[in-house]
């Protein structure tokens, strides 16, 4: 069995989006936790990691064919107040036009007639319908589990938009607005600037995670409702607290959106409606 830690040294990079004073420490805690966590946290074969193993990942992990990280996300709806900071931060990070929301905050009705907010980024499905239907393989799985788009290949047929059960994909009808010079080419991990005539979506900010930074939505959620995690290390953090991912999900009855579709998303939700939680 192989336990892996992050390759990035703590504090190796600075985030231009980083405005929170505490997140430097948090980052060290998260990544450091991952380093120390070999024995304490990241035991493969237990909890969530065990469930991931059922999805063929363990075999891959053992043979060393899997990435060092397997990204996951947890969105705690008990904390989400629908402010939309995640959406705006994401749009800034990726230089999206206002009409494009890669993490869209939906206001939905619950069974009691009340409403709750549900931010929906790309669910990073392990069995992704969008990847299956792409005629040219422009949508594909990365080794770290992220489902990404190569906008240099996408022919813009929008079949993936039809296939996605979560409606998270957007089309670039126009060129993106005012992209600074330093962004030269779109890569699958960071599709900035986006290419007109191709499909775009949440890229899990893999480029940022590689540099030890958080996805924009995680970093800028002032409610600390969004966690980014690593299934291999079995840790997750919202930039403030670091939790043992599998325990956190089990203790809080986490669910996956449209589980019945068999898409096996890597985004977990904890049910709620923006109540004031103290934990």
């Amino acid at each position, binding site marked *: 069995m192989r336990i892996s830690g992050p390759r990035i040294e703590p504090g190796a990079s600075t985030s231009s989006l980083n405005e929170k004073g505490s997140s430097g420490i948090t980052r060290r805690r998260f990544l450091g936790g991952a380093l120390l966590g070999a024995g304490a946290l990241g035991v493969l074969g237990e909890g969530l990691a065990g469930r991931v193993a059922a999805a063929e990942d363990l075999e891959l992990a053992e043979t060393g064919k899997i990435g060092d990280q397997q990204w996951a996300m947890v969105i705690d709806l008990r904390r989400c107040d629908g402010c939309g900071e995640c959406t705006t931060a994401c749009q800034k990070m990726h230089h999206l036009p206002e009409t494009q929301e890669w993490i869209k905050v939906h206001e939905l009705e619950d069974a009691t007639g009340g409403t709750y907010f549900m931010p929906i980024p790309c669910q990073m499905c392990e069995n992704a319908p969008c990847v299956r*239907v792409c*005629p*040219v393989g422009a949508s594909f799985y990365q080794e770290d589990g992220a489902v990404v788009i190569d906008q240099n*290949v*996408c*022919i813009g047929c929008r079949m993936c938009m039809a296939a996605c059960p979560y*409606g998270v994909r*957007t*089309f670039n009808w126009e060129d993106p607005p005012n992209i600074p010079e330093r962004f030269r080419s779109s890569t699958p991990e960071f599709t900035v600037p986006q290419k007109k*005539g191709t499909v775009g979506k949440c890229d899990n900010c893999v480029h940022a995670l590689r540099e030890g930074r958080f996805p924009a939505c995680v970093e800028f959620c002032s409610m600390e409702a969004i966690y980014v995690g690593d299934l291999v290390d079995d840790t997750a953090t919202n930039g403030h607290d670091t939790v043992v991912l599998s325990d956190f999900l089990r203790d809080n009855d986490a669910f996956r959106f449209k589980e019945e579709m068999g898409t096996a998303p890597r985004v977990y939700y904890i049910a709620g409606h923006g109540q004031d939680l103290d934990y």
Partner: protein
Amino acid sequence: MSVWSLDARWRGDSPSSLDDASVAPAVSSRRAFLLCVAALAIPVAGGVVAYIYQLTQGLSVTGLNDEVFWGVYTVDLVTFIGFSYGGALVSAILRLTNASWRGPISRIAEATAVVTLIIGALFPIIHIGRPERLWEMFVRPQINSPQLWDMVAIGTYLLATLVLFSLPLIPDLARLREGNGIGGWRARLYRWGSFGWRGTEVQRRTLNRALTIVAIAIVPLAIMVHTVLSYAFSLTSRPGWHSTIFGPYFVIAAVYSGIAIVILASVAYRRVYRLEKWIDERSIRFLAYLMVAMGVAYAYFTFTEVTTAGYVGGREEAPVLYGLMLDRYAPLFWGFVVMGLVVPVLLVAFRKTRTIAGITIAAGLVVGAMWLKRFLIIVPTLAPSLLGDSYGSYTPSWVELMVTVGAAAAIPLLLVLLFRVVPVLSADEIEELNDQVRS
């Protein structure tokens, strides 16, 4: 051999022989031909200009958006390829079953199939965001993708349709080697295209065997094309699309509208070139019967689709069905049911309206209504958001409409050009069938 000309037609004459009749559109007034071409070329040119504008500006010139991301182009794609079924499938099946009434309409049917398929096959390119990257489908094909199989199926089917169109041409072109009043490059084409046909026993047997093979091959091919086209919808989890009947549902729709197109083309040539004696009313009537049979089948499919979805309902299915049948799209949907299913069937059912005029009106209604039906399959499913918290909308832009009108006008334009060169009647086949009937 007498040359039947425009003057003769003005006197109300019908061509005097089968050979004259088969080349009537080819030898008629040059001026009328050019006028007709010019009149049809204007909307086609408009469509081309609109598409060039779209190429320079991108898909933002359409009415599409992130909710309704497929629209009129997808409708056109399914509709125009569907038109080709009347020619390919019907002509092949009639050949295989040796239906004696197919003779007068088989050439028109096969030509219509080729023309509509070529136009339909343009729409996958027109509708994508990056047409210049189409080659990616060849260099990195993904066999899981329904889009890839669309391309494979359409390509193979187009090839088969071309063969089904060209093989029966050989004996007919041989009949024209001697000219029949046509000289120049067309005469040279006839000599070349008849491949030394002399009508010997061996040649006849070879041709018939080849035609039988193509006819047999084209039936599953055609079924495959529309089934795979339907997979672009039914292989998603969207309400209103994810349905097991979509394959046959699309195939029946295609045959239904395809026969209607063949009827319209046959009636037009029959009327303009006074071919009543050669394209008899019986052939048109039998086509109409086939069309109505398909219409009834389609009505049944529509009924069973709506009933299974609506009875159970479901959180995602219900809003789509509600929008279609009772809300936003209800006028269009019920308009389709009346004008596309009920009226055409009734027009053909009653002896009083079962005239050439009545059948033509029925076919015209079917053609329009089936375009609308494809719209009603695509847009109402996309409009409500998957979470049920918003409702998108879609209005086709002038670019989309101009491209559509241009593509529609390209059908008669290509037919007029084609029949200026090749005989509109398969004289050889007609004679062979007449001999069969006599003996």
